[in-house]
């Protein structure tokens, strides 16, 4: 799992390096700092399971096995991108690996995941659906509606809530009462919840495995709350500590808690070097592929508005 996290981190850092070239002309919500929930949860899934995500979806897509080449090509707006240049960073998809899709309207992909779970339920399929959501999604009405629907139909869906404490620059403290957790909200819908350290990938994996097992047994939906932290700005490649919306102390404490560095002792420097080099090669190839790919041709493209 450390290799998967390292790969995601290095992809995101490659985007950081290349973004100033202004060739990736779409918003990017980088997952730097939030790799563990994606990797820990996706590592616990079976090949048949389905995943949906939100605006900050690079880590989820990559952890699920989505094509790196097609993701980068999408960021470059190329015809070889995973949506052929129609969606961009906020609309990743790779149905072949069960990554149904990500969409950026907060909370909005959650009922769609419940619908995917309803399909599994109606057809008696042995698969679960995972949807990644953030702390702010818990403030949207549609998420509560969705939790209720999942509970009333006992659907095989795992709500994976990454609490990174901020909705853009607005802290949780101005958005939700201090005495109530995100899990409390899900519990109120009669859904079993599990909370954990979202920067500890092994803990995440254990929680997700337990949840996966329970859901697969027909226990119904489970909500997991994972505390984590975004180390870069909300949207874009930069640090934004200069804005002052979060304290230096808070930032430093989370940086000390970096999910990858916490596991650094589990991998030797030699091995890390080898792994890093392999990932670097893969990323370079993917970037070369993306850059060399053609743009979609507005003269010949058939816009797929209708089937």
């Amino acid at each position, binding site marked *: 799992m450390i290799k998967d996290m390292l790969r995601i981190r290095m992809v995101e850092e490659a985007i950081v390096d290349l973004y100033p070239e202004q060739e990736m002309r779409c918003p990017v919500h980088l997952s730097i700092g939030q790799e563990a929930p994606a990797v820990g949860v996706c590592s616990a899934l079976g090949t048949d399971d389905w995943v949906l995500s939100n605006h900050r979806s690079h880590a989820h897509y990559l952890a699920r096995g989505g094509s790196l080449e097609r993701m980068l090509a999408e960021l470059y707006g190329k015809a070889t991108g995973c949506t052929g240049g*129609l969606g961009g960073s906020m*609309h990743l998809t790779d149905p072949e690996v069960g990554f149904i899709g990500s969409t950026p309207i907060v909370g909005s992909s959650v009922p769609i995941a419940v619908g995917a779970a309803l399909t599994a339920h109606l057809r008696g399929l042995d698969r679960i659906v995972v949807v990644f959501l953030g702390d702010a999604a818990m403030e949207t009405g549609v998420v509560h509606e969705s939790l*209720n629907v999942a509970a009333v139909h006992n659907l095989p869906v795992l709500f994976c809530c990454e609490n990174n404490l901020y909705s853009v620059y607005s802290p949780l403290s101005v958005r939700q009462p201090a005495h109530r957790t995100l899990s409390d909200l899900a519990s109120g819908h009669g859904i079993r919840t599990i909370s954990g350290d979202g920067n500890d990938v092994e803990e995440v994996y254990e929680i997700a495995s337990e949840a996966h097992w329970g859901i697969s047994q027909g226990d119904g939906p489970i909500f997991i709350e994972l505390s984590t932290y975004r180390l870069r700005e909300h949207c874009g490649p930069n640090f934004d500590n200069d804005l002052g919306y979060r304290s230096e102390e808070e930032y430093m404490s989370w940086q000390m808690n970096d999910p990858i560095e916490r596991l650094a002792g589990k991998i030797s420097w030699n091995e890390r070097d080898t792994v890093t080099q392999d990932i670097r090669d893969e990323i370079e190839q993917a970037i070369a592929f993306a850059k060399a790919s053609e743009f979609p041709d507005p003269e010949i493209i058939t816009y797929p508005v209708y089937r």
Partner: protein
Amino acid sequence: MSREITYAEALREALDYCLEQDPDVYVMGLGVPDPKGVFGSTVGLQDRYGPRRVFDIPLSENALTGVALGSAICGMRPVLVHQRVDFALTSFEQLVNQVSKWHYMFNGQMAVPMVVRMVVGRGWGQGPQHSQSLQALFAHIPGFRVIMPTTPHDAKGMLIAAIEDDNPVICLEHRWLYGVREHVPEGGYRVDLNTASVVRPGTDVTLIGVSYMTVECLAASLLLEEVGISAEVVDLRSIRPLDVERILESVQRTGRVLTVDNAHVAGGMSAEISAVVSEFGFDQLKVAPQRLGFPDYPTPTSPALADRYYPLPHEIASKCAEMLGRSEIFKPPDLGDRRLDQPNATYHGPF
């Protein structure tokens, strides 16, 4: 051999047929399995197909729209039913951001075969939030098909075609059409989702009716006939895509077009039709395209006020006469026992 059934029964037969034909079809909506079964259109379906395929929902229109979408992209064919258009507005986020765009924004990799039925209310004090007819809002969004069947025959054939279609279809059904009876074939048949229908041929003026307004246009055409004016009545029925070809063909014949929309005039389908006719059929026009519809204020509740709200046959006929440079002013109908807030004297509220 005539087998007359109502519009509501025709809708129910369409659902019944699709549920029987395709195990991926399911029907959900508030009140779908209740004793009244969405004004009769879903009665008995749960008994026949069971609670897994025909079921009631929590009062969460937005989430259930996303649920329908999520299941559709995974292979199901959901039909989501709302007892009023107004109630479905809480699902506008899912409809506009997700349902209409999913196929497009993921580059055609996933089909979205789903139908959302919504009922348009009228009369008996339905008022500002039970009688909105918002077809123009839906028709504005690329990715939707929007249909408003007027006849029982079309209701059944279009609903079957909509459920079998691989695109999201918004089906708007006028409450006052539910009791209309006509011959409807048994079994399955399809009515094209892309075409308007000429329900009465004529030569002097084209009346384009939207949903229930087609009924009023037909009544107007009878008034016009009495004074020797031949009106062609076109039932628009397909709101998006618009059957521009058939509209222009009719205008070519008559040179005059009056659109009677079951909605506000400003920014509505009547504006779109006038624009299309002006752009592509300008040479054929003898007079400027005209429009009738609802005034620019929400539906009032009191029957005294609601009586003045909806276009009536005599007003449609008078407008046509004016377009022909004639002076006939048609008189309001003699209603007998009927008030204008009920479709006929036997039709009592609440509804």
